[in-house]
Each structure stands twice: as structure tokens, then as C-alpha cells.
């Protein structure tokens, strides 16, 4: 028992691992909470697109010596607003327009990366670098988590209503397109912090997988949000420990643990149904 405990806590003797632990817990919990809306409103594709379109923002910030997270945030928020605009005005189907834009933005990011001669530094953006989180970045991540979760709680009843009956929300006087854009902007903030843990490519997993698992375990949205947050946090902690002991990619391990918990939720759902 003692050995197991030692095995579990050993990674966190180091300051960088403690930073990584708190950063990944905050981010995974926030992703779980907002991810519940992503799953129920079928926004998984947009979530993936927002993560990918952050890339050119990061690269441009890097090339100009600006703050990388700031660059990602600007690109993410611009994409969120652009998607809101497209959904309202374009004659294209929304998923088609998003597919065109996000692949183009991602390709632009890769072209800029390849021209910068420092591709290896930017690998962290693609695959995450939670072990490199500094204390000041940790505070920023905590700030984003508190702001996102607080706003989601304050707008909960309107977001919930607009998610299943946009017509009634409109009749009541709620501008559902503004609400959707607000949700996408919060999503952009969440994703940009998520990129630090698992990178551009795997961020949507943190959004979708815990919430999808939670949706199998509860039929109450508020409970689903907290269960998803807890699944995300557990995945983050276990992922960090496993990746430390087996010297494998931290972000990818967190995602795989998340997927394992999803499989357990599927099993629970299956057996409780019988």
C-alpha cells in the first residue's frame, strides 16, 4: 500500500510536476464543464476547428516575439466570432464553411512554422507541453477557468433553454445567436488553455470525451457538467503519473486515460441498463 502511495506521489516532488498537475486539473475540469454544452449542442466539430485555428495565431505571435497564448487567444476568439457570423449570413452549410476555414488556417500555421526554421519549438503547440507551464501561466489558466465556469453558471438557464429549444428562447426575447457566439468565445478561451496540456491536435478530446462519458452516467445537465469536470481532472492526474513513470507523452497519455474512463462509463451504462 505504502509502495503504491509512493508511486503515485513520486512525480510531484518536483515543482514543474506540481505546476503541471494544477494546470492540467484546472484545464481538464473547465473542458469537462463547457464540454457538456459542446456534446449536447453538437459543437464537437467547431471545438476541433477552434483548436486548429489557434495555430497561425501562435506562430505569428512567435515570429513577432509576442506572447504565444495571447496569439492563440486572438486567433481563437476571431474564429469564434467568424463562425458566429458565418452561421448567420452564409448560404453555405455551417459545417462546410468551418471545414474550409479551419483547414486553411491550420495549413497557414504550418506554412508559417516551416518558414520560421524553428519547427521543434512549436511542436509543443501541436502536442502540448504541460510540463513546461510556469507559475505565471498557471495563474492565467486558473483565471480563465474561474471566468469561464462563472459565466457558464450565470448563463446556465438561458444556455440550457437555447440548447434544446431555440425557438422558445427567441420568443422570450433571448438573442440565441449572441448567446451562441458568447459560448464559442468561452470555448475559444478554454481551448487555448487546453492546447498547453494536450496540444492543438488532441484538445477536442478533453472537451468531448469526459462530457460524453458523463452523459452516459447522468441525465441531469448540471450533474453532467460536474461529473465531466471530475472525469477530466482524474484523467489529468492519472495521465501525469503514468506518463512520468513510463516516460511517454503527457498530453497523449491524459487523452488515453480519458478514453479509458469513457469505456468504463460505456460498460456501466451497459450493465445498469440490463
Amino acid at each position, binding site marked *: 500500500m505504502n509502495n503504491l502511495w509512493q508511486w503515485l506521489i513520486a512525480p510531484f516532488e518536483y515543482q514543474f510536476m506540481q505546476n503541471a498537475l494544477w494546470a492540467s486539473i484546472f484545464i481538464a475540469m473547465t473542458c469537462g464543464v463547457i464540454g457538456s454544452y459542446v456534446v449536447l449542442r453538437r459543437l464537437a466539430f467547431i471545438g476541433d476547428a477552434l483548436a486548429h485555428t489557434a495555430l497561425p495565431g501562435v506562430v505569428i505571435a512567435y515570429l513577432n516575439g509576442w506572447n504565444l497564448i495571447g496569439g492563440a487567444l486572438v486567433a481563437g476568439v476571431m474564429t469564434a466570432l467568424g463562425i458566429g457570423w458565418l452561421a448567420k449570413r452564409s448560404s453555405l452549410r455551417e459545417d462546410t464553411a468551418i471545414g474550409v476555414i479551419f483547414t486553411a488556417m491550420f495549413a497557414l500555421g504550418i506554412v508559417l512554422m516551416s518558414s520560421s526554421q524553428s519547427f521543434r519549438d512549436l511542436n509543443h503547440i501541436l502536442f502540448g507541453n504541460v510540463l513546461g507551464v510556469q507559475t505565471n501561466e498557471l495563474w492565467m489558466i486558473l483565471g480563465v477557468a474561474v471566468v469561464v465556469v462563472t459565466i457558464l453558471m450565470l448563463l446556465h*438557464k438561458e444556455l440550457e433553454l437555447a440548447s434544446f*429549444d431555440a425557438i422558445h428562447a427567441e420568443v*422570450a*426575447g433571448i438573442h440565441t445567436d449572441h448567446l451562441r457566439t458568447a459560448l464559442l468565445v468561452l470555448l475559444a478561451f478554454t481551448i487555448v488553455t487546453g492546447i498547453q496540456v494536450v496540444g492543438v491536435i488532441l484538445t477536442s478530446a478533453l472537451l468531448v470525451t469526459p462530457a460524453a462519458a458523463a*452523459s452516459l452516467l447522468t441525465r441531469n445537465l448540471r450533474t453532467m457538467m460536474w461529473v465531466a469536470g471530475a472525469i477530466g481532472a482524474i484523467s489529468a492526474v492519472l495521465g501525469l503519473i503514468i506518463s512520468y513513470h513510463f516516460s511517454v507523452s503527457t498530453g497523449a497519455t491524459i487523452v488515453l486515460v480519458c478514453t479509458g474512463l469513457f469505456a468504463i462509463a460505456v460498460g456501466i451504462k451497459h450493465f445498469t441498463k440490463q
Partner: protein
Amino acid sequence: MINYSGRTHVASVPGAPAVKIQGLHVSYDASQGDALAGIDVTIPAASRVALIGHNGAGKSTLLKTLVGLQTYRSGSIEIYGRKVRACHHRVAYLPQRGEIDWKFPITVRRFVMTGRYVHIGWLRQPQSHDHQLINQTLERLNLTNVADRIISDLSGGQQQRALLARAIVQEAELLLLDEPFNNIDPETRLLITSILAELQKLGRTAIVATHETSRLRDEFDYIAHLHEGRMMTLHHASDYPHFVVAESYE
């Protein structure tokens, strides 16, 4: 309270009809022509009106225009003497059941509570009098035993009753119901029509789009007949179905 639309309560004009439509033209797309063209009708307050017409005649379009979901190209609409959407809680709209995501994880009680949101507004939570009203309405609509179930567990008739409960708790003066009699059991139909009669006694008006015409004479005061979106006539229900036959040959 912070209102959703930023608007405050606007009182009805005393003595005004529930709905007054003049020269209404509605088009979804300029290239496809008008969905409604030149509609004129006045619907008295405290009446029950069945809105009939063929599929595609524009019944749903008319209801959506009255509630402000669909803009109109020209003409005028007054709801109790005021413009459309002058006061959000005055008009309740029951969409066709297919327009709602019934798989969403929300209880019947909370679903019905969404009818109160227009009175609650941003950043506030329902108060005890809201909960009390919900309980009374759930009981009246025989939904108390399923109040804490998820809406996906409801039958078609129960879903329709939940929609009506939501409209009732909104305390609207005008109720617009889009095909509420589709695929429901006879008991639910009877319950819905008896509640519309109760609401009428309280001075409320109901306009019900329907193609279930079997009991119109008993269940409604007036019948509004919409002809391919081009003309609308209002008749006493007792004249049904003679006027429909007559108008078909005009």
C-alpha cells in the same frame, strides 16, 4: 430584473382585438414569392380560434409571424393594440413537437419552468411563487407523476401537455398552438380543449393551427380559413363546414 430584450412591460390597449392583421405580406426568400400575401383578419379577444388550411397554406408561417419569429415584408400586425414583440410575455407559442430536442437531459418540471423565464430574466433564479405555479399547472395537466422524469421519457400526448403547461405558466394573453392535436390520445385532446376553454374564461385568446377538423364546431368559437396563403376568412364555428365547401368553389 434584467429583461431579455431590454424591454419593459407594455400594457395592452383597452378594448383592442387580440390580433389585427392588415395587408400582411410575408416572404422567406424574395426569389420564391410570398408565403403570405394580402392577409387581412381581426380576431376578437377572449376567443378560441381554429386556424385551418391545406398543408403549405401558411398556417405555421402566420403563427411564427405573430410571435415575431418571422419578419414580414409589408402590412401591419397589432397584438392587443401593440406591435409584435412589444411585450414578450404577452404571446406564448407552442411549436410543433418536432422543433424541440426531446433527447435533451432536462426534467419535465424544469422544462415547464422555462415558460417563466420571460418573467425572471437574466441572472435571477425562479422564486417560490414560480415553483408554486409550476406545481399547480403540472397537477392540472396530469403531469405531476412525471414531473421529475426526463422529457425524453414522455409519450407524445405528455409532451404536448408539457408544452401547454409551459405556455400556461408564461401567463400569456395570446396562445398560438401549432398542430397540438397531432398524434395524441383522445384524453389529451379533451384535456387541451377544456384548458383552452378555462383560459378563455380568464380572458385569454387561443389560435390553434390544426388539420384535425373532426370536432371544430364543439371546440372553437371561430374558424380562420387560410387559402394557399392568399386569403384568410373568419367564420363562426357553427358555420363549419359549409363555408369551406362554398369557398372552395370561389
